[in-house]
């Protein structure tokens, strides 16, 4: 199977699942072997931005065992500290753990507030991710969605396609953006540098099984990933490691036609598309 044939099959999988998708998959040890489907198109990162954030944290020189307190004014979200009610004190590296394993918005925003968006941007430049831009924190997604949906109310308005068409949070030009290729480049950096070993550990501890990991239902294959989700947006980037030593970075970004929050087929196609691409690379 040629790479273009594999790409055509990936496209067909996306169409069949009712999504438009972009993908880049690359063999970490033979980077000339790759599968691209719109790999250089700008895409909305959603919570995938937490990966460049944590990479920037690890290059910041800060003491990662330093403890900070997240008080009542922290960002909110459905998971981790974001969903808790009382002040929490923990180390920077544990905040990074929650930000990546359960996509904790409060933990991620606490790290941004500490190191600054400029520092994330500097890291992105240093790694030559030319088309990646991080301008929003998690709480900025929530804020702009509420502003742009008004006068309609969240969360119900987020199932209305007309409301979605005016959300800045869903327009790559107006929010955190990247390209599938930029994100696999970032993963290669994480998998090649000792300084990033803790990031590899926590990405492999991510709890969500429904996207990238669902495509590799094997006990001897390790999947380390980070999802990104917003209305109609279902993303995941990650590295798949086989027992024979094969290691593949995959970045999948999708937009669903349906505005339903719960769409198992759209989640699963992230895994099946990644599997098809990885099998082509093996």
């Amino acid at each position, binding site marked *: 199977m040629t790479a273009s044939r594999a790409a055509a099959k990936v496209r067909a999988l996306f169409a069949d699942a009712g999504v438009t998708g972009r993908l880049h998959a690359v063999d970490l040890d033979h980077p000339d072997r790759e599968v691209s489907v719109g790999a250089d198109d700008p895409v909305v990162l959603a919570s995938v931005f937490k990966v460049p954030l944590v990479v920037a944290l690890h290059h910041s020189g800060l003491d990662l065992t330093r403890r900070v307190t997240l008080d009542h004014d922290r960002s909110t979200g459905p998971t981790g500290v974001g969903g808790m009610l009382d002040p929490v004190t923990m180390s920077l590296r544990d905040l990074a753990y929650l930000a990546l394993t359960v996509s904790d918005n409060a933990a991620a925003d606490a790290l941004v507030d500490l190191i600054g968006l400029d520092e994330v941007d500097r890291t992105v430049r240093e790694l030559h991710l030319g088309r990646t831009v991080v301008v929003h924190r998690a709480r900025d997604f929530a804020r702009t969605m509420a502003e742009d949906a008004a006068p309609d109310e969240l969360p119900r308005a987020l199932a209305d396609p007309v409301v979605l*068409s005016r959300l800045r949070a869903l327009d790559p030009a107006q929010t955190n953006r990247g390209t599938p290729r930029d994100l696999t480049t970032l993963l290669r950096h994480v998998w090649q540098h000792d300084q990033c070993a803790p990031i590899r550990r926590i990405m492999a501890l991510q709890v969500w099984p429904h996207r990238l990991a669902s495509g590799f239902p094997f006990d001897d294959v390790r999947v380390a990933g980070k999802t990104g989700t917003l209305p109609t947006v279902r993303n995941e980037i990650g590295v798949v490691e086989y027992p024979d030593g094969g290691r593949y970075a995959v970045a999948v970004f999708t937009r669903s036609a349906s505005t339903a929050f719960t769409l198992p087929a759209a989640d699963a196609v992230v895994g099946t598309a990644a599997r098809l691409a990885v099998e082509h690379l093996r």
Partner: protein
Amino acid sequence: MSKSDISLSAIAEQLSSLLVDLLRHLRYFLAVAEELHFGRAAARLHMSQPPLSQSIQRLERELGVRLFDRDARHVALTDAGRQILTEARGLLAGEDRLRASAGRFRNGEAGSLRAGVPPDLGGRAVAALLPAFRRRSPVELKLKEIGTAEQLRALADRSLDVGVLRFPFDVSWLGLGPVLTSPLGVLLPRDHPLAAAPDVRLADLNGLALVLFPRATAPALHDEVLTTCARHGYTPADVHQAGNPEFALGLVLAGGAVALHDGVAPPVDAAWRPLRGTPLLWRTSAAWPRGRQTPAVTAFADAVTEVLTAQGMRHAEGTLPRYPRPAAEYLA
């Protein structure tokens, strides 16, 4: 940019300013030729006399002939001036036509609009759409009958300017008109026992096959319909794919199958019954590539809204609660 590119673009710029200048000088020349008086011509042009005189001198230099004989009291056209006056009137009339024509395109009053409509929109809606559009726009409307998936491809490659699409579809790059909904019912053979009741529950359809549009024409909608049927207790014995309404009707009349229909002018040889609780809806709106909303596109979207509303479609209103799960990563 190379050196030669720079000089070429500089030349092109100068050429275009010369051309605009020539037309401007000719307008001044026309005013003076008609008034035969520099003061009156300047007043008519809302300018002072010295720049007007300079303009005429520059035109005479440019053309290499004298246009006027002038002394302290009189201004008269020379032979060359009289001849050139005729040519100038032609040129200026041409400029007026050119600008008016560009303006008509700019304001969406000229050209054509390529619009797509779904195959199941119905002949009455199509018939009403043309006059409703004509009342709003002088542009020629070219209608094409194509499904949602194909309309999206055509909008993306610019072979379509605007479409009428059934939700759901990826709206991330589209501008949308109002979303209109029509509750769906089913077509049954007239002699089917279910046709005896005023409405039908989805669960009552168990054992019957479902006739539905081909999945490839709108995969997301196809799946949404089947998921909703299953959620309301109806798992079709089989799903037949029918691209056109006549074929769908044939499968219904042959027995053992039902087809979905919005109840607008249902075929007379079948019975149409609404579904209790309106579990299934078509949601429809006009859509165009974002940033390409011309006046003709707006006129078409308004015409679609008028026609579909007249057919009984209503503005969408969300009434169901929504509970995002933690895996959604946003909202608490």
